[in-house]
């Protein structure tokens, strides 16, 4: 009898173990090695640049507007997110009405409504608000610089107010992710009563929220181990049926070293890595991993100085430099991992504008222009370029700059590279070509994102963006460009706005305030068992439709 009981208990234990093991085995887990050194912030306004938005923003949260990440062929554009439609007030173009998507719930079960939108705007704009988060201001406000206030009209309608008429607002709003006010209030209530300072209580509530976040996105953050890993599980109740996740769990691992990331992939520790080590590409392919790449809204340029005495003041010199780089050869040098630029945006983009100056490799034309400008092999023009040895988005700055240096030598340029540390270069970018920090440089090599018109064009061509206000490092700009920008900013019909932006882009390419060298292609390597991957022409990628075999 005793033996039978023991046998039954043992059998029951074995069955239970087998069932739970099978359940675990069936769990579809996607493990991702990021380039970030830490988990991007998880409370709704990620840091770590756009990699933060890619991995802890878009998967867990939605904005009023979202990016369309469903196509690898078309340019990624803004689509309705938590707002279904929006319109500017015809009488007062600083006021916008946004209609909200009905029936959406946060992952904690509370409803998404106009109060939630007002609360999320106030978290970064209203200092007096109990939930104001000073550390979220920097990464958010600069990406929606004109937004000032949000007002509830009814449960599913909000009015957003800007400081000046700004047609870019719907694009900017992709950066404002909606976090759950109810969940945050619960975290605040859990802060010990011994903490009495309201600001400190709010800070602790946000820290707790980051460890157990709640948005409306397709994934729910469940476990945060700072600097090591972050786990998200599928939100099967997600409001968009096309984006209900197919994997059960996503694990994010910060692996800042390219070799470590590559080794983690090759040894099977992760299923997906961002930016594999370029030297390892043949080995990655040989082991049947799949490489994904697509030109991103990103520019790897030399931004030229228009300060007094700069050789780039002569348009022929600027255009000649653009014609003297064999970008296809550079692409080969980079194992094919770059896009060949024709301007800031590509010819299939709504802002293209068909410029009359064609950026291509034509050394004969370049030499002719340089000769006309008074330069020759015996009398080359001396240019100094400030760059870094590494840095976010910089791709492989040293070999790429050396390639450009060699290429331009053919066209009578004598290039001196001034390599400084990335953080310093980034800081100098804001100070401008006339500042002491430029050390006499005539160009600066800092890469940039071109997701929205301000980042792509306005900040480099507006006279209002001269240093130290923004990133017009080279002091390029005049009344014509200010006029084109003003027109684009105050044209509210999306198609007409894009046309105005195309006119701006056309003139930028023709005036060539940059030497456009490359577009990044966002290389990532994945295990062949990861299916349903669409790498859009974007800095972002949608994890939700992916599956793991």
């Amino acid at each position: 009898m005793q033996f039978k009981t023991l046998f039954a208990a043992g059998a029951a234990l074995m069955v239970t173990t087998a069932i739970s093991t099978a359940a675990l085995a069936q769990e579809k887990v996607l493990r991702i090695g990021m380039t970030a050194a830490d988990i991007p912030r998880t409370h709704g306004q990620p840091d770590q640049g756009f990699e933060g938005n890619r991995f802890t923003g878009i998967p867990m949260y939605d904005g009023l507007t979202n990016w369309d990440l469903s196509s690898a062929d078309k340019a990624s554009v803004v689509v309705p997110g938590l707002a279904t439609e929006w319109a500017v007030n015809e009488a007062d173009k600083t006021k916008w009405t946004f209609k909200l998507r009905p029936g959406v719930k946060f992952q904690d079960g509370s409803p998404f409504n106009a109060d939630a939108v007002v609360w999320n705007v106030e978290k970064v704009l209203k200092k007096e608000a109990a939930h104001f988060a000073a550390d979220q201001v920097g990464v958010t406000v600069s990406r929606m610089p004109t937004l000032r206030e949000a007002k509830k009209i009814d449960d599913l309608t909000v009015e957003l107010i800007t400081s000046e008429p700004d047609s870019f607002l719907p694009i900017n709003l992709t950066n404002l992710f909606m976090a759950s006010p109810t969940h945050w209030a619960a975290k605040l209530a859990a802060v010990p009563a011994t903490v009495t300072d309201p600001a400190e209580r709010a800070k602790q509530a946000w820290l707790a929220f980051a460890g157990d976040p709640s948005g409306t996105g397709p994934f729910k953050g469940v476990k945060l181990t700072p600097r090591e890993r972050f786990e998200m599980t599928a939100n099967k109740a997600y409001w968009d049926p096309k984006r209900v996740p197919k994997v059960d769990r996503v694990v994010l691992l910060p692996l800042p070293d390219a070799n470590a990331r590559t080794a983690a992939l090759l040894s099977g520790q992760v299923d997906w890595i961002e930016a594999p080590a370029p030297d390892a590409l043949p080995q990655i392919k040989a082991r049947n991993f799949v490489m994904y790449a697509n030109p991103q809204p990103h520019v790897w340029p030399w931004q030229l100085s228009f300060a007094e005495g700069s050789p780039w003041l002569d348009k022929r010199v600027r255009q000649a430099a653009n014609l003297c780089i064999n970008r296809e050869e550079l692409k080969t040098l980079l194992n094919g991992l770059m896009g060949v630029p024709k301007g800031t945006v590509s010819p299939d983009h709504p802002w293209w504008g068909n410029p009359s100056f064609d950026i291509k490799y034509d050394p004969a034309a370049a030499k002719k222009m340089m000769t006309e400008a008074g330069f020759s092999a015996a009398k080359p023009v001396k240019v100094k370029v400030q760059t870094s040895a590494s840095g976010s988005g910089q791709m492989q700055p040293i070999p790429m700059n050396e390639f450009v240096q060699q290429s331009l030598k053919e066209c009578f340029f004598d290039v001196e590279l001034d390599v400084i540390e990335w953080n310093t270069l980034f800081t100098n970018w804001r100070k401008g070509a006339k500042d002491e920090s430029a050390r006499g440089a005539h160009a600066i090599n800092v890469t940039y994102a071109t997701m929205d018109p301000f980042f792509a064009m306005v900040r480099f061509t507006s006279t209002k963006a001269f240093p130290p206000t923004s990133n017009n490092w080279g002091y390029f700009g005049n009344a014509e460009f200010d006029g084109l920008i003003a027109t684009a900013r105050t044209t509210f019909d999306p198609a007409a706005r894009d046309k105005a932006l195309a006119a701006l882009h056309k003139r930028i390419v023709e005036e060539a305030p940059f030497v456009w060298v490359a577009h990044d292609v966002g290389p990532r390597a994945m295990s062949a068992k990861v299916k349903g991957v669409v790498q859009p022409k974007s800095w972002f990628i949608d994890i939700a439709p992916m599956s793991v075999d």
Partner: protein
Amino acid sequence: MFLYALKRLIYVLPVAIGVSMVCFMLVHIAPGDPLISVLPPDASTELREQMRRAYGFDRPLPVQYLLWLMNVFQGNLGTSIATGRAVSEELSKAVGNTLMLSVMATLIGFVLGCLFGFVAGYFRDTWIDKLASFISVIGVSVPHYWLGMVLVIVFSVQLGWLPATGAGPGGSGAWVWDWEHVKFLILPAVTMSVIPMGIVSRTVRALVADILSQEFVQGLRAKGLLDTGVLRHIVKNAAPTALAVMGLQLGYLLGGSILIETVFSWPGTGFLLGQAIFQRDIPLLQGVILVLAMFFVFLNLAVDVMQSALDPRVQRS
């Protein structure tokens, strides 16, 4: 002994203040913006000023330093700019991870170093000495970073025996002393142990060779002491110096290796220090450097006290 330890302990305070002051000045002299991790480059001037005020960077440097020092004396190392988490919280986790790694590396390095050194010294000028010396020279000379990558390629990528990165299958927070976790420790610990192994080995070899040439060893042998007895005397005489060298090596290892911890994504102090430097996260940087400096100071103190216990002549000098 107690007075000696107390005297050495009092010396710690000025050293700590000196280190913190030098560190504070250096991180502020370095170019770059401490707000780079929380402010994009296109942030408006007003927003930038607002953030500078919020983080206290608008105050004069001496005021910033004194405020920081006062907080440190109250046990508050501040808050990381980049993560918003308490520096002490970040540090305690990193120190724990580095401690685990460095103690493991020290054990490997000390045991192998003493073994190779002793054998080389005892069999001086024989092929055994040459072989042991060759291994220790390799240990001192080989670049850490390179060795780590080679080990990863061989044991993780090619053979698939050991994991390439990380501190356990569920991260260091879920660490358990079982094989599934310990195997994450092996490659970084072996990589880290190579330099101390080489240094200890060279030191012990020289010590043993020197002791063997002293008259008292001949005296011991003349008295008819067996080889094992003579060895015991050699070990006892070599131990204080070997211990001091190992103590310093442990100090270096406790500082964490930026390169090794980056190669293996090991979340220790070296990894943290690297991130703090690249992000210009000044509160975190100051906290890490202060704690690492204190490691050195206290480790030296511990080694001195142990040395004086083993050899009272040290105390008198």
